[in-house]
């Protein structure tokens, strides 16, 4: 067996592979381990229920919390059912409905990002994939409860960002978050998807890169060889990070939470003004 490179020496491509590792814990595994209780909620009240998004109300270390995440599925059957974690518009609309429900009752929200991207298909376009994502971005900006976003695996472009407008944006050590997948990027710029490794480096999509660029607030440690090696430990580390950040956000009023979140995103992006 080839030794797993130690954290800090892993290349962007190695992180991509760890983020997509078949044994990596998904939302279901974290939910099972992090919460004292969890009750799923279903449906967007308009079209259907999207199995690619798991949502529900939970008890987290003695306090109520709404949790929402993209679930990729584990075995072949599960993956098919979950559409490989690629949500359709009804998934984003369910997520938003559930977040607004939490806000109505003053409950904090935890979103767990893990998707290759929003589903690109005829039905998704017909039902307004773009509108569903846009609406989610817009409404999340004004929810007046603490929102913690954690990218736990693959943060796939707009399909991930749709649930990513939070007061705290965290990433697991081996997670990746990117405007485009390395394969698609390589296919566009070199017309060769096999050059994904180069594209992964160029896109600066690792947690370390994004912390350095000011796109995320903190990195959550994983077990030494990666979350896939020890689900319990990974869930404990994630739980600790969520608890710490919730405690900080508890100090803010609802209006401060909205203002702080706005300012955070308002500042993001690099440009300069010519004299």
């Amino acid at each position, binding site marked *: 067996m080839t030794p797993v490179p130690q954290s800090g020496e892993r290349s962007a491509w190695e992180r991509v592979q760890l983020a997509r590792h078949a044994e990596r814990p998904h939302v279901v595994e974290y939910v099972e381990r992090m919460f004292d209780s969890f009750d799923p909620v279903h449906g967007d009240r308009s079209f259907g229920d999207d199995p690619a998004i798991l949502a529900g109300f939970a008890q987290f270390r003695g306090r109520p919390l709404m949790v929402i995440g993209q679930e990729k599925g584990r075995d072949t059957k599960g993956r098919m059912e979950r559409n490989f974690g690629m949500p359709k518009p009804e998934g984003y609309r369910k997520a938003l409905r559930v977040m607004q429900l939490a806000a109505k009752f003053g409950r904090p929200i935890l979103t767990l990002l893990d998707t290759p991207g929003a589903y690109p298909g005829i039905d998704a376009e017909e039902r307004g994939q773009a509108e569903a994502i846009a609406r989610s971005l817009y409404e999340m900006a004004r929810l007046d409860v603490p929102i913690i976003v954690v990218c736990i695996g693959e943060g796939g472009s*707009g399909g991930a960002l749709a649930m990513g407008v939070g007061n705290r944006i965290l990433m697991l050590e081996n997670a990746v978050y990117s405007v485009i997948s390395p394969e*698609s990027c390589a296919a566009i710029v070199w017309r060769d998807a096999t050059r994904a490794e180069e594209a992964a480096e160029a896109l600066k999509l690792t947690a370390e890169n994004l912390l350095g660029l000011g796109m995320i607030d903190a990195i959550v440690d994983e077990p030494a060889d990666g979350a896939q090696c020890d689900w319990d430990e990974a869930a404990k580390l994630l739980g600790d990070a969520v608890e710490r950040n919730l405690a900080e956000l508890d100090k803010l009023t609802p209006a401060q939470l909205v203002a702080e979140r706005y300012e955070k995103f308002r500042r993001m992006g690099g440009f300069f003004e010519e004299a």
Partner: protein
Amino acid sequence: MSWFRKDKDKDQPLPEPKKVRTEGLWIKCDSCGAIIWKKDLEAGQSVCSKCGFHFKITAAERLKQLFDGGAYQEFAERLRATDPLSFVDQKPYGERLEQARSKTGLQDAIITAEGRIEGRTVVVAALEYRFIGGSMGSVVGEKITRAIERAIERKAPLVIVSASGGARMMEGMASLIQMAKISAALTHLSDAKLPFISVLTDPTTGGVTASFAMLGDLNIAEPGALIGFAGPRVIEQTIRQKLPKGFQRAEFLLTHGMVDAVVPRTEMRDYLSRAFGFFCGPVA
């Protein structure tokens, strides 16, 4: 007298035929194939007089068409992109930017301006498709956000005319985040009870559609414009079948409830004026 006569001057070069330079004066319609006199096309707002096909126009032409007397005042025009990732694909991003700048005369893929439409002060942001596919990086995101802030400051309605392939991947995550930044800023415009009309033109896809372009109080589209989240090629590759005719066109979005109206370019000013009249009342 023979019927034929040998041309003694055969080896002499033929006199130059009279040449009239016509290149660039005529344009062939991409849709119906009609040959149109370029000046006529421009006079008709770049809409084919035969079939109504809407040619792509530049951001500057767009603003001229929308504002009274074609007059407007640009703002935030000196914002320039950085290259946070030092991104190199077939050429360095910095070089790509320079080429786009010299091609379009713009600093980035957008013009933000203030002017009047039927006497009413309106803030308009128009994306420039010729500048790296109208892609949205930090400068586009910042300029749209400033346009929103200016509309609030002036208590003026906002129009954003989209023409974009989506987020600019050469700026990585920072470009994706602009979707959230602009969408959040629009909540402030809404709180100020100021109208925002999103005008979707050919093409509008990706992260632009999946953020501000779908968040108008009214979303209106030009006839025939391609509008979607995923591009048609990506969808074809995913589902491995041909897409139905008219899929993701403005009229398709209208029947699927995603846009309020399909408005021809020649009626755009009147439409906007009526809508703002409805939302804000007569011009003071």
